[in-house]
């Protein structure tokens, strides 16, 4: 198995472990990351920072 395959395997295992949590536990996880998500979405899109920039 290559390094990439190992990495994907670990990622799949991690996701499966999260799926087996109880629903209230998953909701609490979502609550914990929500403020970070809100702040990320509130940030201007990178292209908004330089509206005059155009790819030639």
């Amino acid at each position, binding site marked *: 198995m290559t390094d990439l395959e190992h990495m994907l395997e670990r990622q799949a295992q991690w996701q499966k472990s999260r799926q087996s949590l109880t629903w*209230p536990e998953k*909701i609490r996880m*979502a*609550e914990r990351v929500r403020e970070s998500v809100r702040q990320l979405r509130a940030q201007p899109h990178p292209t908004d920072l330089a509206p005059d920039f155009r790819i030639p």
Partner: protein
Amino acid sequence: MKELAQLLNEMQRVGVIRDYALFGATAQMRYTEPVATLDADVLVAVASADRLDVLGGIYEFCAAKGYRPEGEAIRVGAWPTQFIPAFSPLTQEAMEQAETADFEGVAFRVVRADHLAVIALSVGRAKDLTRILALLESGSVSRDAIKSLAARYDLAEVWQRFESKFLND
């Protein structure tokens, strides 16, 4: 979220709403791994559907309980909550056939996985299509179940396109 379940059950008990069911990302998490979301979405059938402001009764009840509007939502505990009248035959059926789950000891009506998938199919944004894939991956719904339900709501072609784009090798 438990506070939201309690509030919804109380609204149903006193007759502010006839029925409700949680849907969207917070409902999806019952079946899949956790996903990032900012708010909770609830399908509702209001008791006084002939009112011009269909959700007025809900807002009044929430205000009396101390829950305040936050944009288009009402904050209930940690969750800005959007109340959405069941807007189509599909969402109507999803609400009526919702399952009653247990959320930390409180009954909480939640849209079934097959209805979540077909509602997502009908909306069709990228995050909705991702939801269908997550539900399938979790094993909470089968392709056949989605196909059958989609066909009943005139979404057979949309499902066929989704299958050929994302599921067929």
